[in-house]
């Protein structure tokens, strides 16, 4: 089972907090990979909020290709951040791990954010395509104020490898996943969290209806719905599709992945809309077992379960800092000083949403909306 550790706070904190939480939740062998997505960045990045950051890994050859390509695309490099790698036994070091801050091409500077987002995503996808056959480039995210780090190995060792304990890298929202691979091959692109145009999520569990869901997403005519090296990537894309593409409020994510029964829908005020949504998005219904933790561009963080099999998940904290974890001990590690009696264990109808800046936490019940 994978371990998930998300923390959201109104002050900057180090990803080490997430890694240590992962470590407390560790059970048995667990070295299929670590993924970290940081949003609302501090340190040097705090000054560069408006500029898109390309996160990824490349070989020496890939670095050249990447530079040439970005140059041609009209992106001007502003800043490079690279972790100071400390070789650790068992982890194969790749040539470059990077987060490169760019300035938009001149023609895009004044374009609306939606158009910028499309451009950034297309650039990321092209890089991915160029680098995938020979593994010379991996591009995980390309978006303002977001960094993604991924590598195969044990999370704590990887933290040491990346020097996260020494580096001054901080953020207000960090999602971390320690992967225990079950179904699909160990591969960097199969590593959670998955990110697309400001939406990010990581998942625990299996996805029974992966094939029809993937087919549904891939046939939406949206270029970003590709990849799927992990059956969990669809959860991120469903989130993106529901909230960004269809413009539904976040709470409807639950209605899409675990629609209510007819009799339950009847009790809801928005029943008419809900019935149509249930029919039109029928292929996106999941069976679980899953817990999904994610964030949206506005900085809201959420946790949601499937409606039948359930995977563990808990949310707790204090005003200004909340953690969303796959296990209670992870929460104890991240925010020990909290009122434990207020910890939330979401059940089949619940979506837990932590407001931006960890302002407050709300449980949204699907039956009552």
């Amino acid at each position, binding site marked *: 089972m994978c371990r998930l550790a998300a923390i959201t706070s109104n002050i900057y904190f180090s990803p080490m907090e997430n890694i240590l939480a992962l470590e407390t939740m560790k059970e048995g062998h667990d070295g299929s990979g670590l993924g970290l997505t940081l949003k609302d960045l501090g340190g040097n990045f705090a000054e560069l909020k408006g500029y898109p950051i390309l996160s990824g890994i490349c070989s020496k050859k890939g670095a050249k290709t990447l530079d040439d390509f970005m140059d041609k695309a009209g992106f001007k490099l502003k800043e490079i951040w690279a972790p100071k790698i400390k070789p650790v036994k068992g982890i194969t070091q790749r040539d470059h791990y990077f987060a490169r801050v760019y300035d938009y091409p001149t023609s895009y500077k004044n374009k609306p954010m939606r158009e910028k987002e499309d451009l950034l995503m297309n650039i990321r996808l092209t890089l991915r395509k160029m680098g995938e056959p020979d593994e010379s480039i991996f591009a995980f995210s390309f978006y303002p104020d977001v960094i993604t780090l991924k590598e195969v190995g044990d999370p704590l060792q990887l933290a040491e490898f990346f020097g996260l304990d020494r580096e001054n890298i901080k953020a207000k929202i960090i999602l971390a996943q320690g992967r225990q691979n079950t179904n699909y091959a160990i591969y960097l692109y199969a590593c959670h969290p998955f990110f697309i145009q400001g939406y990010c999520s990581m998942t625990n569990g299996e996805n029974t209806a992966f094939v*029809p869901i993937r087919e*549904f997403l891939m*046939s939406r005519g949206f270029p970003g719905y590709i990849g799927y090296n992990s059956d969990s990537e669809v959860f991120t894309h469903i989130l993106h599709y529901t909230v960004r593409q269809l413009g539904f409020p976040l709470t409807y994510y639950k209605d899409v992945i675990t629609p209510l029964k007819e009799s339950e829908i009847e009790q809801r005020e928005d029943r008419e*809309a*809900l019935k*149509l949504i249930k029919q039109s*998005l029928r292929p996106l219904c999941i069976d679980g077992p899953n817990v999904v933790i994610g964030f949206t561009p506005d900085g809201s963080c959420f946790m949601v379960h499937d409606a039948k099999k359930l995977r563990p998940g808990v949310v707790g904290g204090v005003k200004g800092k909340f953690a969303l974890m796959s296990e209670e001990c992870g929460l104890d590690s991240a925010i020990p000083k909290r009122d434990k009696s207020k910890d939330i264990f979401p059940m089949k109808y619940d979506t837990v949403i932590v407001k931006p800046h960890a302002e407050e936490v709300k449980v949204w019940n699907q039956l009552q909306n």
Partner: protein
Amino acid sequence: MEPASKLDHNHQLSLKELPYIVRWKDHRCTRCGRCTAVCPVKAIEASVKVKRVVYSEGPVPTPIAGRKIVHVVEQVTDIERYCTGCGTCTLVCPNDAIEPEYNLQNKFMHYKNRGGEGYKRGGRRNDPSISTLDRLKFTRISMLTDPALDAGRHEFRVRTLLGRILPSDELPLKKMNGKLVVDKESDKFIPPVREIFPIMIGSMSVGALSPPMWEGLAMGVAYLNEVEGLPVVMCTGEGGVPPRLLKSRFLKYIIIQIASGYFGWDEIIHAIPHMVEDPAAIEIKYGQGAKPGDGGLLMAQKVLKLIASIRGVPQFVDLASPPTHQTKYSIEEAVAKMIQSMSMTWGFRVPVYPKISGTKTARAVLNNLARNPYAAALSIDGEDGGTGAAYNVSIDKMGHPIASNLRECYLDLVRQGKQNELPLIAAGGVGKKGNLAANAAALIMLGASAVSIGKYTLQATANCLGDEYNRCNICNTGKCPRGITTQDPKLYRRLDSDKVAERVVEVFKAANVELKKIFAPMGRSTELPIGMSDGLSIDDKAMADRLEISYAC
């Protein structure tokens, strides 16, 4: 040379030529005559023979050869009266004295064209081999990493949607106070959609079926809906609907078919003002799996008073429906106009969809429908579908197997992103070997939203004797020995409509349980696993490639 009087009549067939040979046991037979009376084709007759007997009289054995007149039951070798193997004689014999036996060596097809007429029959394709549907296995079982569901504990819903479903990005919704509401100002047409059980009873007409058979089906369906809560629907077939049903609230469980003969439609249209419920849907029949390209035919002897009045025709005339809808010329016309006018008839409140026979050209039809926002579904009837009457050559040789036809249509929809918008209904050979739920589930995982059954229903609910060894299959003659496909009261009084209804209920309840037994271990429960093709495998590489599923052996 000995004179060979029989051989000189060169046209006499031997029993070896016939598909079934009647085994009659002289020593058990009491000559009651029931078998000969009941045989629907007069394949057996009572006959008198002179028999050579050796007997002895007196205290010392003194064998004497003599002749005796005996009464026997004899099978005739007239091809027009061939034994169909129906076994009705066996059913009525009180002494186990008679039984037909299949004759593998038969040359029946060489002779069954007397008078220059091709062989006509009912039933389905005479191919007893294992069909593709029965070769599909469910191989992705949830084990430990993904716990299987528990049919007793988890909520299960084996339901599907019939009707055109709006694409998610065209839903007329707007946000109000953080909630989504239907935008009443939008003039977007929201097509009617029914939630139904994914196995439906396919089109069989009043007329083709006897009154108790049709009644039994309709009663069973009503009971399933109203008492068992299983929303099973059935299709009328061509030829109208009994007037009482048209005006009853049970009409909502009925899909009314319109076919090229438009039989019964005058009566249906006139009944519209008196309808208290809308029908479940309207099916426009363009083709039938058992006889692609052929129209319907109800023979004169079946057109009795009731049928004539329902269909709006005189009694005792052959009722032939043309192979195509005569007033339509192009696919755009045929499909679009017909769908449009049918939709309009019910104020766009009823899903309208076409049914075609399985064919390589199904995708062309599909693509046309995909562009038509009023098309509610596409029903594809594969080559193993049944019929009440058709040429044997059509039944046996024409048409496309359903599995690959359905699959390529589904994948075509996937390529267009319309796999959830236009439901596919698959039919033709579902439950051919009795594996109703497994065949249905396999088709669903290949991409069907629902399946339709016909022949299976007759077999399972009314003990239809027909099979793929051409047993019985005389549905076209009006002499159905079970009383299923006849209008002769002497025959159909053999069938008890209550029993049929009871069996309909049992069949669907069992299928519901079995579908759960398939879906639960695969981890699926509230929505159907439509297109969940990674759950399927087949033991043939070429078939696996064609269906784009995995190969397992």
